[in-house]
């Protein structure tokens, strides 16, 4: 049935939105910085994985792992190397710096790897699901399963560990968190590590799914991730995941209607404007 097939597409798209938006939300929740360069991290993950598959091994899992590691470390580097020193400035300062980092990263990818699209020839043994009603290719199944796994892990870390507790405190009152004994610098660095690794995973997964890697692949993603974070109610991880899935559903189903002749990417921004006008705290408030 067409409906179920569309649902599969929406789940795949929503997975990528959710994975990217989580990092943005976590950073915003704690530092109150709009971390635009996060989309550069997404691209960086994809390029790292590309290097692995073209030079090291075709094994997808190795590429994914190294892509996530590189992305995570790059995130920590951006925090400790840049944001750390400008956090107490007016909020516009880190925002503009972040846009600068993002642009610089895009240019760096273009200089290093050229302005063209690279194929992503990773190999993966993974089942495929064919039913009379819909088909899930191995790549689609991989994305859905992996995203579910990551979200479960994230849920456990946030709710069942010391680090998660520390993050909850940091996002409510950063200096008070320090005053009860939370090593704030470490907590924030770990937060960047995890959020960036997830963005890197999204980059690798999308590179694999669409079979291409290119310097500006993070651009639309950057804007969309912001829409997702706003819809989800700034700083709420659960909200972002739900909002990411919702946005993907709306985009996929509206886009599949015959009379819908608008560019699909515009839907997110129309939604953004509507939400900011009528529900500025996000669709669900703070979850």
């Amino acid at each position, binding site marked *: 049935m067409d409906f179920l097939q569309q649902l599969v597409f929406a789940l795949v798209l929503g997975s990528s939105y959710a994975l990217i938006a989580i990092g943005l939300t976590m950073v915003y929740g704690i530092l109150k910085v709009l971390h635009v360069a996060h989309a550069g991290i997404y691209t960086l993950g994809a390029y790292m994985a590309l290097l692995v598959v073209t030079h090291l091994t075709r094994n997808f899992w190795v590429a994914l792992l190294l892509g996530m590691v590189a992305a995570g470390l790059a995130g920590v580097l951006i925090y400790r190397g840049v944001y750390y020193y400008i956090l107490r400035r007016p909020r516009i300062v880190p925002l503009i710096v972040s846009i600068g980092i993002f642009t610089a990263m895009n240019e760096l990818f273009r200089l290093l790897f050229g302005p063209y699209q690279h194929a992503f020839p990773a190999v993966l043994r993974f089942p495929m699901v064919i039913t009379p009603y819909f088909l899930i290719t191995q790549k689609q199944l991989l994305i859905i399963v992996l995203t579910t796994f990551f979200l479960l892990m994230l849920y456990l870390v946030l709710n069942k560990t*010391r680090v998660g*507790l*520390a993050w*909850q*405190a940091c996002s*409510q*009152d950063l*200096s*008070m*968190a*320090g*005053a*009860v*004994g*939370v*090593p*704030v*610098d470490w907590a924030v660095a770990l937060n960047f590590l995890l959020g960036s690794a997830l963005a890197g995973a999204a980059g690798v997964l999308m590179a694999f799914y669409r079979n291409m890697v290119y310097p500006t692949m993070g651009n639309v993603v950057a804007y969309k991730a912001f829409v997702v974070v706003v819809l989800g109610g700034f700083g709420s991880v659960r909200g972002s995941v739900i909002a990411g899935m919702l946005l993907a559903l709306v985009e996929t189903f509206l886009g599949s209607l015959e009379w819908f002749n608008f560019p699909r990417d515009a839907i997110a921004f129309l939604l953004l404007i509507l939400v900011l006008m009528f529900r500025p705290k996000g669709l669900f408030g*703070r979850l």
Partner: protein
Amino acid sequence: MLLVDDLRVAYGKILAVEEVSLEVDERELVAVIGANGAGKTSLLSALMGLVEPRGGTISFRERDITRFPSWWRVRLGLALVPEGGRIFPDLSVEKNLLLGAFVVRSRRGLVENLELVFSLFPVLKERLNQRAGTLSGGERQMLAIGRSLMASPKLLLVDEVSMGLMPKLIPEILGTFRKLRGERGMSVLLAEQNAREALQVVDRGYVLKNGRVVLAGTAVELRENDEVKTAYLGL
């Protein structure tokens, strides 16, 4: 135990604390009294590492902690009950208390501290799963004190705990600090606008005015001092 020497705190060009020197000994209750804006909160914030001092030194248990991050000070045995409590409003009472014990690594220490907090403030036990933001003003102060005790502090910094409390609760809350000294050997530095109540419980006190220490002495001396009587006790 705590030695503050020539401490200065400034926000931009505005000096909030000027050349303040004071000390707190083991098992001692000390008050810093002063009007609103005298610099009490700035002083305590600097002691806890929430603001960076412009000059001077803070040493705690024979260590110069002037530039230590606040979480490191907690590990050395300092804890703060901040003005207004500053509990984590969206987290449960239980999580607030667990966060207070972030530096306590042993299970036993955690349980002991929880028992101490529940014995002082039984109402917190009933509210464990409630969101801290839904507590009443008095309960929030109790949670803030409880949270600070969870870290097994050696010196408790208490900022304006009487503010916003029902008058009849004030002696009770201040009394708990005497109890803590007796049972746990804790020292307490109490910043208070309410000089009358504060001078009832402490051993010694400093009077802070426009960021400077203008008077120091035992609680009895301060209570009998004419200047204190007219300016802070309203006699």
